[in-house]
């Protein structure tokens, strides 16, 4: 597989520790969300990104504080990677009044605007044009901000993907489109329903963009490609389309045990677990076992504290139902 691995150069020790810490936090959060689901405390559906942490972490660490993140219903990690509160996120999953959206959005819509997390979008493809719009705004305001838009492989077959790519190139917008190719469009292998082998990278040339295919399970690679693509956008060089190969450790959503995946494939990708791979690399680079254990312990403490915060919240209040349809805070449609 011709994976274009950007020169990882010298990712410094502090950045590497940050990448590791963020990936471990995202992993622990998703696992905790799953445990709370088994306790029947998390309701509805949720789409975990276990195994895909390197992409969110790589971009999260490379982004400027005022850059914009747009993500999908599988968006816990991208939202948290911008610094959103874990406690508020778990509380939202649990339908609590202290939830990030006061119970009105749920797992598929985590948003934290003050941290640049501009929303999790649950209709496939919709947020690509929206991210382009935020980039257009940054461009005309000359703010230097960049919009980064994460989406799955299945999105490359919907019209909004193509409309957004074309507009972003024509208007030379500061936006980075990041396709997380986890090989499955929900339950169906992406290659069974796509005209080209690499659903995003092979389409890049249709928009005059460089074809970029990277190992989405390698945190150094993701950090480096994030720096390059964000840097290009910020410098006025226009959009990029990145395809990052990765793998979901679980099914599409709560309802999916993912029995359709060949065992050998699952084994291969579990061995490429981005956190295991990165831990080994850091040890080889001379970072001590004790330091990594300390990072892991702190991540666990953070998730435990977030869990306590979420559990302590009262259920969302019914007063919320008729609030915030409009900017005056009301839901009033008549006088």
């Amino acid at each position, binding site marked *: 597989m011709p994976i274009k691995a950007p020169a990882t150069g010298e990712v410094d020790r502090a950045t590497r520790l940050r990448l590791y810490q963020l990936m471990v936090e995202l992993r622990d959060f998703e696992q905790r969300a799953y445990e709370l689901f088994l306790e029947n405390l998390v309701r509805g559906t949720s789409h975990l990104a276990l195994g895909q942490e390197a992409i969110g972490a790589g971009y999260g660490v490379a982004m400027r504080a005022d850059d*914009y993140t*747009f993500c999908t219903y599988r968006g816990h990690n991208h939202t948290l990677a911008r610094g959103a509160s874990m406690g508020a996120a778990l509380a939202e999953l649990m339908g609590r009044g202290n939830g990030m*959206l*006061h119970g*009105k*959005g749920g797992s598929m*819509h985590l*948003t*934290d*605007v*003050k941290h640049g997390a*501009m*929303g999790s*979008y649950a*209709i496939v*493809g*919709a*947020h*690509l*044009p*929206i*991210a*382009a*719009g*935020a*980039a*257009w*705004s*940054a461009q*005309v*305001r000359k703010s230097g*901000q960049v*919009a980064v838009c994460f989406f799955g492989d299945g999105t490359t077959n919907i*019209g*909004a993907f193509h*409309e*957004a790519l*074309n*507009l972003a190139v*024509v*208007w030379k917008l500061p936006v980075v489109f990041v396709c997380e190719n986890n090989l499955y469009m929900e339950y169906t292998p992406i290659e069974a329903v796509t005209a080209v082998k690499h659903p995003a990278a092979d389409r890049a040339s249709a928009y005059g963009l460089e074809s970029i295919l990277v190992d989405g399970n390698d945190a150094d690679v993701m950090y480096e490609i994030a720096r390059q693509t964000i840097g290009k956008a910020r410098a006025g060089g226009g959009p990029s389309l990145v395809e990052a190969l990765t793998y979901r450790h679980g099914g599409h959503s709560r309802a999916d045990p993912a029995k359709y995946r060949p065992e050998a494939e699952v084994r291969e990708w579990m061995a490429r677990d981005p956190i295991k791979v990165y831990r080994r690399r850091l040890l080889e680079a001379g970072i001590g076992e004790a330091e990594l254990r300390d990072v892991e312990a702190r991540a666990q403490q953070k998730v435990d504290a977030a869990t306590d915060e979420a559990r302590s919240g009262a259920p969302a209040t019914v007063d*919320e139902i008729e*609030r*915030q*349809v*409009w*900017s*005056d*805070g009301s*839901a*009033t*449609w*008549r*006088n």
Partner: protein
Amino acid sequence: MAELSYREAIAAGIAQEMARDPMVYFIGEDIGAAGGVFKATVGLFERFGPDRVRDTPISEQAIIGAAMGAAMTGLRPIAEIMFSDFLATCWDMIANQIAKTRYMTDGQVALPLVIRTANGGGTRFGAQHSQSLENWAMAVPGLKVVAPSNPADAKGLLAAAVRDPDPVLFFEQKSLYGVKGNVPDGEHVDTLGSAKVLRDGKDCTIVALAAMVPKAMQAAEQLASDGIQATVVDVRSLVPLDTRTILNEVVKTGRLFTVEENPRLCGWGAEIASLAADECFDDLDGPIVRITTPHVPLPAADVLEDAAMPSVERIVATVRKSMR
């Protein structure tokens, strides 16, 4: 007062707001150098330049998505969808994204944007370029819905829509683009959610919207010569809905007729009829009657289209029969 056509009033409204607020940007297909396919944006490109008046590809999802992303990050965009029928191609952006994001994020995101679109029939364009679709928008919580009936309202309500902090769908009736009327000089800003009583009568209340307003007014004139004095209310804004004005006029006359260009089922008139039945039952002296297009796609041929849409004659005949 200056006499402007409805299309000139639209352009004047956009120009007024773009001159006032540098954060107002305008995007759409053929809106720039071409001046819009309905010539409702003539002169804007020359005055404000290609950065603020931007032509787009035929990509309605990209147009509306871009407007949303821009609105949530500091701009006040106006986006044009050439024919309201094309709203169907970007309805996800409007109904799922724009309408719901403020609510789902409990107010973290504000979306001050306007979607302008040419709406309605009477132009022999056939069923995919003639629909009156304001009811689609009215049915989705989170969208404001405006449809002016004359040049002064077109300018004033458009200005109000641009200044409104929430998303507004602004329906311009194609058959009215050439209609002329007096528009106040200088800055003109109207109020969303205010209906207007255009004519006072003691016998019945006719409630109409957009192109049906001039028809209702003509019908009222004819009815007067028969001795039926009709009040005519121009709804102007479906969301917010000025129920106070509308229901007050219903109570005064005891009879309610709605005139809707849209097909029969679930039209805005049904909502007003329901409100009148709920809240003015004791004041009603007879059945509420809705005058609509039959529940069919609009046909193209002139004789068919004219017969399908509510006409002055049909309004007169319906009111007369019901008031007998």
